């Protein structure tokens, strides 16, 4: 089916043509009665569409709560670090501490953070961290600062040695984006 001939007016023009030239009609558009009335209908539609796009209809106030209750009920069992029988800590809790440390560096936002126990050493961890950096603000020295802060946080706040940190920058962000 030819897209451009979906709705032909008696004058031979297509409704879609009128729509595309709604703000810049030619002589025919201004004088043809079919085109004129179509233009007016389309203008009303355009105004209402804008209203529809901006309308302030929200779901029930408790919808977030219902969604999150279902989500929390599904949270998978966390992997634990530390010697069996001793004090063990969830890798997700450690990841949260390390992300927070990396976030402290200006122009850096921690994204994925995977924490595993270092092979053969239950007092050390290996970490894979991806970060997004702010466009225009980020400096290469910031990567060293992220390494320092993450290592310090692991030692001081969790009590484990950072045996390895794979750090990668996987995105740029601009201030105010999405916020």
């Amino acid at each position: 089916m030819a897209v451009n001939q979906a709705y032909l007016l008696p004058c031979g023009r297509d409704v879609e043509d009128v729509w595309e030239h709604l703000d810049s009609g030619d002589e025919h558009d201004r004088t043809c009665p079919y085109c004129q009335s179509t233009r007016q209908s389309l203008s009303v539609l355009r105004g209402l569409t804008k209203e529809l796009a901006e309308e302030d209809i929200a779901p029930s106030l408790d919808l977030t709560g219902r969604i999150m209750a279902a989500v929390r009920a599904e949270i998978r069992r966390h992997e634990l670090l530390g010697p069996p029988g001793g004090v063990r800590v969830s890798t997700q809790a450690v990841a949260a501490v390390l992300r927070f440390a990396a976030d402290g560096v200006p122009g850096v936002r921690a994204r994925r953070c995977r924490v595993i126990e270092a092979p053969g050493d239950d007092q050390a961890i290996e970490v894979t961290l991806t970060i997004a950096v702010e466009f225009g603000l980020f400096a290469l020295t910031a990567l060293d600062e992220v390494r320092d802060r993450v290592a310090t946080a692991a030692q001081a706040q969790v009590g484990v040695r950072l045996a390895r940190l794979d750090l990668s920058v996987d995105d740029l962000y601009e201030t105010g984006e999405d916020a």
Partner: protein
Amino acid sequence: MPALDTDLDTATLVARARDGDVRAYEEVVRRYQAPMYRLALRMLSRAADAEDVVQDVFLTAWRRLSQLHDDGAFVGWLYRTTTNRCLNVIRARKPLSDVDLDTTESPSPAGRPDRAAETGAQMTALVAALDELTPEQRACWLLREVHGRSYEEIALTIGATATAVRGRIARARAQLAEVMSPWR
């Protein structure tokens, strides 16, 4: 000073949620439940059905986060999943003739609290006209004209070519404009 969750960009929140950060995911839900709800409401016309779809979409999203490899593609995924859930709900509905009319909701605007706010007669007419489109046409038109999604993404959503999507939107627009003629 680390940014609050509410200040972070969506891709960062999604990446954290993928690591099991529930608070980051809650912020994602707060940010996108309203647009998904508005899309579902216009697709389904019933507030309760729309909320069920949104709840289902965000729970499914949480379960599938680990399979999502591009954090920046998450919002497109939400639109796609919401649209498809709505189309499934419509397909599962009984044809009107099979339904006992005494037990169904009144189709009049007065019987629907979610439409009571639409006092404008034009808007009421537009919303009624949307219901007259085929579900796929309605989805294409809403995604493009109200939610600003790309033709390519819409094509992927409903399993058609971008050209076919343009055609559906053109026909939807012509049909809707006809209903607008009493006000021109």
